[in-house]
């Protein structure tokens, strides 16, 4: 099991557009990725609906987890994405 903890960089938090960009990326990843608040219940990172219910604000940390071949590479990509401000990304 690989794991990354990352602070969300988007100004509005993980909502609307940032949530949509993140879950689209998670959908394309070769392994199943989960996301959770530290100590919280993990949810499917490819589900925008579930990701939004985490209601993560800018600067708050979340934990990404995945297992299997390519897990580390996938998590690195997603963690890098989350750290950026996706509201202003074009």
């Amino acid at each position: 099991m690989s794991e990354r903890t990352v602070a969300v960089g988007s100004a509005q938090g993980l909502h609307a557009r940032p949530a949509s960009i993140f879950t689209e990326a998670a959908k394309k990843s070769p392994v199943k990725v989960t996301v959770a608040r530290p100590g919280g219940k993990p949810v499917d990172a490819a589900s925008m609906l579930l990701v939004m219910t985490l209601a993560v604000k800018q600067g708050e940390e979340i934990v990404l987890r995945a297992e299997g071949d390519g897990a580390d590479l996938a998590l690195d990509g997603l963690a890098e994405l989350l750290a950026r401000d996706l509201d202003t990304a074009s």
Partner: protein
Amino acid sequence: MSVAEATRLVGVGVGRGLVVGPVVRVHPAPVVPADGGPPDADVDAAFEAVGDVLRAQADVATGTLADVLRATAGIATDPALREEVARRVAAGERPAQAVDRSVEQFAQMFLAAGGPLAERVTDLRSVRDRVVARLLGEAEPGVPVLARPSVVVAHDLAPADTAALEIEKVLAIVTVHGGPTGHTAIIAGQLGIPCVVRVPGAAALADGEEVAVDAAAGTVERAPGEDRHEQARARRSAAAELEKDTSPGRTAEGHPVALLANVGSPADARRAVGVEGSGLFRTEVLFLGHASAPTLAEQTAAYADVLRAFGGRKVVVRTLDAGADKPLPFADQPGEENPALGVRGYRLVRREPGLLRTQLAALAAAADATGVDPWVMAPMIATVSETEEFVDLARSAGLRGPVGVMVEVPSAALRAADLLAVADFVSLGTNDLAQYTMATDRLRGSLVDLLDPWQPAVLDLVAATARAARAVGKPVGVCGESAADPLMALVLVGLGVTSLSMSAGAVPSVRYAVGRHTRARCAELAQLALASRTAHEARAAVRAAVDDQVGATLGL
């Protein structure tokens, strides 16, 4: 179908425009039948198809609409939602029922979380409606994406539907239900889109068929001939001619009558050119669609934006008018049995005083930021005590411009002299004044005859209010839709009304009509209306006495 069968459908027109164009229907949301719908419907295919349609629509849309469509497409392909539906179907639920219940489960979760999540519930339910419609074999519900300029035909349009319309492609709006003072009509009027409401025959109109919509006559004509095309062009060029005149409102002898626009947002304010300012800035529009009240900073920015758009011209701000037909999630009192007579408008201060205080503080901050002092008024004032309270609140918030109240309740009209001893001005909201004078729900389209602003009892109250204002030399405006009717505008001027605020699109016709009559002539027209026994007789008497050229040019 025989030729005689309903080639000309009749309703109630809003505005003066005449257009010819193809019909696009807005289909209502599907209802899951008691048996749950067909057992073998392919739920995955339905979700995929809805996702594809939404993505295709997003690709041709722009701005916010494109973002909303893309996010909604994301919901249709959401793995968690799909798993929940699959689980329910495996457990024996019918597909349509499973979709309905799964979406509702997420919607409840979002509503419980509140904040920005609660605002996504509309998108969730829109996916439910679209997928369920497919599973039941019904037409795609909701507002379609318009491929070309079209006449939008609906049973009724919710404010959210109207917001989803690509206005620049809407030639006209036709509804089966609704009323001339309902919100679809008001928004259409504001945007200058011809609109005909309460057209029972409109339910039979088919997608793609060509119709002529005449808002001045309140008709929708099927298979219009070349003559109608010609008339539409003529009406357009006459309107364009009147629009060239952007001078201040004046009677024939030069007595000023301020002509103002009703606006709801900074975008409306920027569209309001060729007017002397705004006689009604409806602030609740900024609050609609929010799960919680906008912050002081958000409100300050929005108000400053509107003040700047008018560049020093007069702006009359109406404080939050929520409740009854304009529900807001954070101001609503569930279980009001009679919301139009309940806690609405200024009365919200009894339950949520913070809302008004924040709003007045934001207006004062916007005034400081822009150097423009807005006029401020409170809606739904019934007594002089409420008037005193509001004036105190506004002054202690630091507002320096005129502070007034709206006259929408008969008690305020009857005691206007008392109100005007305290307030700097009054503004008549004729839609609500008619509703409360005639004891007629303004959303009850079937009672539209009782809501007619030409009802002599309503005119009596307008006259009483104007008389009280004239006695003390204070301004009395009208900001209801009746000011947009050129004939009524003449009567209002004759009664002593000093400013008329209406949808921006109506101003050129009113400017023209007022400019062709003296104030003395307007007073005679007002007397004709007041001397009539019925609304119909009042209008007919004024129509017969109005300047011939005005009647002909405006197609009155």
